């Protein structure tokens, strides 16, 4: 009996979780797209999708059905096998890397991998083959150009992102994802405070790695139609799309785990300690947030044009209310106390990931697209030197910290000077760049794969 349970726990539980993730993720990605479209509409003073469901809430499902029944076109001169393989590779790598992520202390598909963060980063980096091979297999110049740009961009920014990860990992001394969050819990400080420069570097590099605007050169529609996706249609195209949005979730989760304290509540280290009871209102924040959303939905209900839409709005309100109650239970009901970390951990993790993705979207509609040589120069001439200097200085700061026996917030005494020196170095790099550019016309810079 014991052996059977052990066997089920080892092999079937992760399998079932994996199937569940693969089944739910397209829906999540669809709703991220909806939020993105709504946000874009809001920033451009439009309404965005409004037709399907109240406020377009069912739009992702309509889109999915449309993509599924679209004609699947394979160009005559395409390399059929590779054309078939490429989108699968892209989406497979992105979904596989999700397995290593921990959403809460209890939710992790591949439990306690020793190489945790490296697994996530390394596997998700393999998705680039989907892009490169897809661009090559379509046998079209636009696709090939997009694929080349994309691979050049990914390889360049992987270095900067890796260096940023190294500077954060110096604080933890472990690669295990759960231990990384636990170290932040013990130290009582998130690594974004200790390594702000690394966080900034990772932020920029992760935007470039997920091919998002302002670095979405591989899909620059004004130059390359749709880049590597030009020849793909219907379901294959949607696989690429799914991979892109899954990758966004992956980089946001990695940043959350490493820099933003994972599933920890703000001020989690003083949770329940005397003298800090005023901060305990943070336990109620999840419930309050969801109840506020529910109340907003109810207020908006009478304005819906049809009866079905009104019902739908009420259903959304009810769902939010129920989830809010579930989140309230571990705080109020004594029996549910043991589930506090699991339930609230999931909430905080998802909230942080959502805010990170929201920031991506915000940037996309605010900053115009870079030119390809500008992108390459930003990566190689600025971010990579900056991140290398940062690793060096964070290491020095840590040695100084262990010499003075500093912990937690005390570490700020040594890491802040390190960050300031890094910033000075960054300004010097920028000044040197400007001086170099003064010699010749920046627009005549090397037109490397410029389209």
């Amino acid at each position: 009996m014991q052996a059977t349970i052990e066997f089920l726990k080892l092999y079937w539980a992760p399998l079932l979780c994996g199937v569940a993730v693969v089944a739910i993720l397209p829906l999540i990605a669809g709703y991220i797209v909806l939020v993105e479209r709504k946000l874009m509409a809001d920033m451009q003073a439009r309404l965005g999708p409004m037709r399907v469901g109240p406020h377009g809430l069912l739009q992702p499902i309509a889109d999915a059905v449309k993509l599924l029944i679209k004609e699947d076109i394979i160009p005559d001169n395409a390399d059929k096998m590779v054309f078939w393989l490429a989108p699968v590779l892209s989406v497979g790598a992105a979904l596989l890397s999700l397995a290593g992520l921990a959403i809460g202390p209890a939710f992790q598909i591949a439990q306690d991998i020793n190489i945790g963060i490296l697994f996530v980063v390394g596997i998700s980096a393999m998705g680039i083959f989907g892009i490169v091979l897809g661009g090559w297999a379509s046998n079209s110049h636009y696709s090939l150009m997009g694929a080349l740009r994309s691979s050049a961009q990914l390889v360049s920014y992987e270095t900067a992102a890796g260096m940023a990860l190294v500077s954060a990992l110096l604080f933890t001394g472990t690669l295990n994802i759960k231990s990384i969050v636990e170290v932040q819990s013990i130290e009582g400080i998130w690594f974004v405070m200790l390594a702000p420069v690394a966080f900034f570097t990772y932020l920029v590099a992760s935007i470039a790695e997920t091919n998002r605007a302002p670095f979405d050169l591989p899909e620059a529609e004004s130059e390359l139609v749709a880049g590597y996706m030009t020849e793909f249609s219907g379901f294959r195209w949607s696989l690429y799309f799914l991979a892109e949005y899954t990758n966004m979730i992956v980089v946001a989760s990695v940043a959350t785990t490493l820099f933003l304290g994972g599933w920890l509540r703000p001020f989690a280290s003083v949770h329940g300690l005397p003298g800090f009871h005023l901060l305990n209102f943070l336990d109620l924040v999840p419930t309050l947030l969801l109840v506020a959303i529910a109340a907003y939905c109810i207020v908006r209900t009478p304005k819906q044009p049809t009866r079905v839409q009104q019902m739908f709005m009420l259903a959304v309100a009810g769902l939010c209310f129920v989830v809010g109650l579930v989140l309230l239970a571990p705080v109020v009901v004594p029996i549910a106390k043991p589930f506090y970390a699991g339930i609230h951990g999931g909430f905080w993790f998802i909230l942080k990931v959502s805010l990170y993705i929201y920031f991506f979207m915000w940037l996309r509609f605010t900053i115009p697209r870079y030119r390809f040589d500008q992108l390459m120069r930003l990566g190689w001439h600025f971010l990579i030197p900056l991140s290398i200097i940062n690793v060096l200085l964070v290491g020095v700061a840590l040695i100084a910290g262990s010499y003075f026996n500093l912990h937690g917030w005390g570490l700020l005494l040594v890491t802040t000077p390190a960050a300031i020196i890094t910033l000075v170095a960054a300004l010097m790099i920028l000044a040197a760049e400007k001086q170099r550019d003064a010699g010749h016309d920046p627009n005549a810079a090397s037109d490397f794969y410029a389209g």
Partner: protein
Amino acid sequence: MLDKALFYFFAAVAVASAVLMVTRRNVVHGAIFLITALLATAGIFLQLRAEFLFIVQIILYVGGIMVLFVFVIMLVNLDVALQQIQFARQKWVALLVALALAGQVGLMFWSSGKMPGQGLPVLTAAAASSLPPNSETVAHSLFESYLLPFEIASVLLLVAMIGAVVMAKKRM
């Protein structure tokens, strides 16, 4: 049982894709099979509980070197390249070397039972929990036992990197 099945699966995939990589005429297909072979080898590393080597194999070889390979291959016009003189004309030398290698491996297998202390050492499997974490083991042996060779190797790589930059600069 499961372990054995997984090992034979990975080994079969590695060997088959290595053979396919050499025999394909299309270079990109060859590259894909090389990637498959590297991934299968990574799987075998993982089975040996060398998870750090597994991920390094994937990040460095698959994610780094192979991307650059594919990058270069795609820039070459395949139709033109096929009509040019091929440099792969060392068929007989290759056969000789392969035979010598096969003989060496065969000798090792053959001698493992015959001579004590020679050939393949027979090891018993350790429990997974008794093994130290692989990344720590690698770090300790690199930075404690083999610090000097490690530094020499990194200087060598640095020299190669600078050399590549200098050569590329001259052409520009």
